[in-house]
C-alpha cells in the first residue's frame, strides 16, 4: 500500500501548487484570484447543468486515465491514450451509424467495438515491443498521429455522412445512445461505467494473480521474469488492455455525448489523462477523485474566461505544470531496465 505521507508530499502538494500558479495566472490577466476562482467554481459546480458538464468532462478523462494507470503500473509508458481513445470512438461511430439492434444490445455492441478498437491500437505497440523490442514510448506516441490521420481520412472520405456538412459519420439512431443520467443534460450513464471500470481495475490489480504479475512486471521486471511471468505476453496484454480502456472511453463519448464520430471528439483528453493518472497516484480509486478535480478545471475554465476574463488556456498551463512536478522518477521507478528503443 502506498502511504499517506507520499500522497501529501506528491499529488496534494502538486494541487496546492496548481492553485497557487492559477492565482498567478489570474493576477497576470489583471483579475483578482478571488473573482477568478469564484467564476471557476460557479462555472463548474454552480447548478445542475454545470455539475453535469463537470461530470461529462470527468468521465471523458477517467477512461484514458485508468488505461494509463494500468500501463504505468506494468512499467509501460503508454502515452498513446489519445490515439486509442480516437480509434475506440471511430470504431463505435463507424459501426453505430448503420447498426440497429433491439433494446440495450446496440449500445453494448458499440461499447465493445470501442473496447476492441482501442485494444487493437494499444496491442500494436505491445506487439512491437514484445516482438521487436521497439520502445513503447515512441510507438504509442507515433500511433496517436497515425490514429488521427486515419480517422480524419475516413470521416472526410469513405465514412463521411452524406447529410452532414462537416467531416463526420452519420448520427447514431437514438436507441444506440447511452441512457441519460441527469435529465436535460449531456451526462449519460457513461460516468457509472467509468467508475465501475475503476473498481474492477482496482480489484484486478490488488486481488488477482494477473494483477500481481502485472505489478511485479512493473516494479521488479527481473524478479518477475525469474518468477515465471511471461514478459512478452504481459507487455502485449497490458498495453492491449490499457488501450482497450481508453478505447471504451472513446466509444462512451460517441454513444453518450456526441452521438456520432468526428475528429473533434477529444481536445487532448488522452494527454491530460496522464496528469490525472499521476495526481491519482496510479491508484484507480484516487484516479476517480483526480478526474473529478480535472473535470472541474476543464468545465470551469470556460466559465472563468466568460465571467472573469481569464483566458481558459491558463488551465492547460496549470495541467502541464502539474505533470512536470509530479513526474518524479519514483512514480515510474523501474522503466530503465530492458527498455531500449
Amino acid at each position, binding site marked *: 500500500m502506498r502511504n499517506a505521507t507520499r500522497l501529501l508530499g506528491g499529488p496534494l502538494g502538486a494541487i496546492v501548487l496548481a492553485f497557487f500558479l492559477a492565482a498567478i495566472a489570474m493576477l497576470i490577466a489583471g483579475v483578482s484570484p478571488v473573482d477568478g476562482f469564484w467564476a471557476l467554481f460557479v462555472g463548474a459546480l454552480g447548478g445542475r447543468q454545470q455539475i453535469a458538464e463537470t461530470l461529462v468532462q470527468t468521465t471523458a478523462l477517467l477512461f484514458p486515465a485508468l488505461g494509463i494507470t494500468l500501463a504505468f503500473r506494468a512499467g509501460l509508458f503508454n502515452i498513446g491514450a489519445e490515439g486509442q481513445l480516437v480509434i475506440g470512438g471511430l470504431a463505435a461511430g463507424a459501426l453505430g451509424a448503420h447498426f440497429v439492434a433491439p433494446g440495450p444490445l446496440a449500445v453494448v455492441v458499440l461499447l465493445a467495438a470501442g473496447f476492441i478498437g482501442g485494444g487493437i491500437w494499444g496491442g500494436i505497440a505491445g506487439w512491437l515491443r514484445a516482438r521487436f523490442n521497439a520502445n513503447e*514510448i515512441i510507438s504509442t506516441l507515433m500511433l496517436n498521429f497515425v490514429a488521427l490521420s486515419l480517422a480524419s481520412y475516413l470521416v472526410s472520405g469513405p465514412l463521411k455522412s452524406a447529410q452532414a456538412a462537416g467531416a463526420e459519420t452519420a448520427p447514431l439512431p437514438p436507441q444506440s445512445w447511452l441512457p441519460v443520467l441527469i435529465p436535460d443534460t449531456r451526462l449519460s450513464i457513461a460516468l457509472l461505467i467509468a467508475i465501475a471500470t475503476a473498481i474492477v481495475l482496482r480489484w484486478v490489480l490488488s486481488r488477482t494473480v494477473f494483477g500481481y504479475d502485472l505489478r511485479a512486471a512493473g516494479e521488479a521486471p527481473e524478479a518477475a521474469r525469474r518468477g515465471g511471468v511471461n514478459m512478452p505476453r504481459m507487455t502485449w496484454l497490458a498495453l492491449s488492455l490499457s488501450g482497450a480502456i481508453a478505447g471504451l472511453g472513446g466509444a462512451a463519448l460517441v454513444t453518450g455525448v456526441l452521438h456520432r464520430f468526428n475528429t473533434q471528439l477529444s481536445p487532448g483528453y488522452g494527454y491530460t489523462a496522464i496528469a490525472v493518472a499521476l495526481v491519482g497516484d496510479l491508484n484507480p480509486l484516487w484516479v476517480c477523485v483526480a478526474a473529478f478535480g480535472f473535470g472541474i478545471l476543464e468545465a470551469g475554465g470556460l466559465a472563468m474566461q466568460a465571467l472573469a476574463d481569464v483566458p481558459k488556456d491558463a488551465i492547460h498551463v496549470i495541467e502541464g505544470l502539474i505533470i*512536470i512536478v509530479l513526474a518524479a522518477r519514483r512514480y515510474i521507478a523501474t522503466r530503465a531496465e530492458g527498455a531500449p528503443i
Partner: protein
Amino acid sequence: MNAGSSLIATLVTLTLIKSTPIIYAALGGVISERSGVINIGLEGMMIGGAFTAVVFSGVTGNPVIGLLAGIGAGAVLGLVLGLAATIFKVDQIVAGTGINLVAAGAAAYALTLIYNQPGASPQVNALGNGFWVLVALAFVCAMLLHVVLYETPWGLRVRACGENPRAVHDAALNPLRLRVAAVAISGALAGLGGAFLSIGEVNIFSDGMTAGRGFIALAAVIFGRWTPWGATGASMFFGFFEALQYVLQGRVGWLPADAMQAVPYIAALIAIAGLVGKVRAPAADGVPY
C-alpha cells in the same frame, strides 16, 4: 519552361522550405538523445520559439531580434527539461509531455493577453527573403553538429553520456551537466525551427501552427538513426511528402491528404521495429542517471 519542369522546380523549392523547420528540430532531437535524454518536448519548444519570435519582432520591429528571442525561448524550455530530467530526477518522458502542454497553453494564454485576439497574432515584420539564409543554415547546422559530435572531445563526452553515463562519471566529468547542456542546445535548435515557421515562412503566430512538426522531428531522429545527416535526410524525406501534398492539391481530383500525413509516423514505426536494417539507439537513451 514547360509545365513539367516548373512543377518539379516548385516541388524542390517547397521541399526545402517544408524540411527546414523539421531539420532544426530533428538536429535538436539528435543532440538530446545522443546525450541520453529523449526530448518529447520538441513540439512545445517549437511553439515557444515561434510565439516568442513574433512577440519580439512585433515589439522591436526587427525580425532578427525576434529570431534570436525565439532561439532563446527554445533554449529556456530545453533548460527546464534538462534540469528536470537530471537534477530534479523527474521522468523525462512525462516532463516532456508536460512541456508540450505548458508551451501550447502559455502561447494561447499570452496571445489573448498581449493581442487580445485568440487564435492568431497580428502581422509582424518577418525575415522576408532572409529566410533562405535559414534554409541554408539548417544544412550548416547539420554539418556543425556532425563535426561537434564526432570530432571534438565535448561531442565524445556527450555521446558517452548517451551510452554509459557511469563511465563519464568515472572519468571525473559530470554527466548531468553535459546532459543539461545538450538538452538546452536541443531546445535552442527547436526554437529556431519554430521561429522559422512564424517569422520565416509567414509573418504571424497562430494556434496550432507547429502542427506536430516536433513529433515528426522525433520520428526523423529515429528514421535517421540518431545521426545528424541521417536525421537531416529523414526530415527532407518527410518535408518532401508535405510539399507533395501542396503541389498535388488542386491538380488531382481527389487526394488522401490526411492519409499522407501519417507517412512520417508510420516510417518511424517501421524503423523502430528494426524492419529497415539494424537500428540501434544510444544505450542509455531515456535512462535516468
